[in-house]
């Protein structure tokens, strides 16, 4: 039996339907504290609905969603306030404390955003906006981070670099992270565990734990096999 204080998010027999359309039937899963979980699945399978259930913007029709800790979300499209500068956007609401200002300066340097501190969102590139958004999450006090395809609107190079920046920054802060993505490479590269969803009514068809020791040629082969096994599950 798991200790309940180790659990960050728990779905118990969650049903979710919109009028006649049944999206989830008997959805069960548990996410432990400080775990990095990716949720992959075909589009329309309800990935974002899972995040909305966790964040409390949707209530399950039946069953229960238990969440321990406060939540912050990074969206697919920028949710930075256009009328605030980078600095003001990051030190927003509860983020604005003395201690956080130190963290802010440190991260600003680390993410190479120093020259853009006083810029406004519309003066930044898409990649930089997403960086600022990630930084806003990292500065504050939060237990659970929800990532709703945060890298999907970026070009290839930006995606790789920002992903790396994020993973590096995450190593220092132990937080529960739930990543929604349709990019299997991204899921394999970033997370410790992958939940694969199928379509209508959505359930978890596979739950893969990743140990991060895929080194050498054998390791590469293993990753390659893993990727194609996920793809084949998603396409059938």
């Amino acid at each position, binding site marked *: 039996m798991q200790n309940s204080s180790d659990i960050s998010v728990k779905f118990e027999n969650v049903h979710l339907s919109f009028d006649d359309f049944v999206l989830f039937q008997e959805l069960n899963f548990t996410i432990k504290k400080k775990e990095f979980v990716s949720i992959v699945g075909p589009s329309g399978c309800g990935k974002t609905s899972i995040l909305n259930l966790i*964040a409390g913007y949707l209530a399950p029709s039946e069953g229960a969603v238990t969440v321990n800790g406060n939540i912050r979300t990074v969206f697919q*499209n920028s*949710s930075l306030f256009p*009328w605030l500068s980078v600095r003001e956007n990051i030190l*927003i*609401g509860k983020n604005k404390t003395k201690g956080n200002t130190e963290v802010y300066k440190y991260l600003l340097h680390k993410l190479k955003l120093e020259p853009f501190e006083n810029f*406004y969102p519309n003066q930044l590139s898409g990649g930089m906006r997403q960086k600022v958004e990630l930084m806003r999450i990292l500065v504050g006090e939060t237990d659970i981070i929800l990532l709703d395809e945060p890298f999907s609107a970026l070009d290839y190079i930006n995606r790789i670099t920002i992903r790396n920046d994020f993973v590096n920054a995450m190593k220092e802060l132990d937080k529960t992270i739930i990543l929604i993505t349709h990019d299997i490479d991204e899921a394999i590269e970033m997370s410790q565990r992958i939940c694969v969803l199928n379509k209508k009514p959505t359930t978890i068809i596979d739950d893969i734990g990743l140990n991060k020791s895929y080194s050498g040629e054998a390791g590469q082969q293993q990753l390659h096999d893993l990727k194609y096994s996920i793809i084949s599950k998603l396409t059938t």
Partner: protein
Amino acid sequence: MKVILFFKLLFYRSALFGILISVWWIISYMKVFPEYAFPSPNNIWLSFVKLVNSFRFYSDIMYSLYRILFGFLVTIFTAIPLGVLIGLYLRSSKSLITVFNFFRFISPLAWIPFAILWFQIGDKPAIFIIIMASFFPLIISVIAAVRNIPESFFRVAKEYQFSKRDMFMKLILPAINRELITSLRICFGISWVVIIAAEMVGSQDGLGYAIWDARNGLKLDVAVCYIITIGVLGILLDNIFQYCLTKTRGNVYAK
């Protein structure tokens, strides 16, 4: 570059007004209308000089400005908070909007008889008419603007635990400020038009009454002077709103 642009603009504007005055002068010179009904530019100039040296001219302007400012402030401090509250909390308020629309489509001038009955002659009926003219268009546009704020912004506010004050000052007000200033500008235009008519019947002073008074005394040259004053003041006041627009960094939503 800026200086050249300034003189270019000045040239075009003066040329345009020059043409207008010439047409006016020609019509009056040809005596299409009798002199008392269509004063010539020189006559207007002479009475204008007389007017700007009289105390009454300034007191009329001040009366009109005071009424419009008072009415407008009442509208601002009622329509904006009310519109924000409705926009935020009443997600389906179609019937309420219909009521506001009903009043919006009634010409504010239709209230003049009631305004005089309720508030007698003086400042109050004019102020009442200003409120009736500006409240309904403003509240409708505030409701619409609040509903246009992207949902994700409210999620950010919730996740970062905004205080009620931050919610209003840092999210809602800046998110709607450009739309707000534009509708204030439009409402002010309506009010400026309406106050003249309101003062013609409901007051003993102000720019509207001055025109009416000049007409009664068959001093149409004075009436024209007041008409020009109204137009010039309207442009100047509108420029204040335009200036505010250039100074706001509104919701240039990041794509």
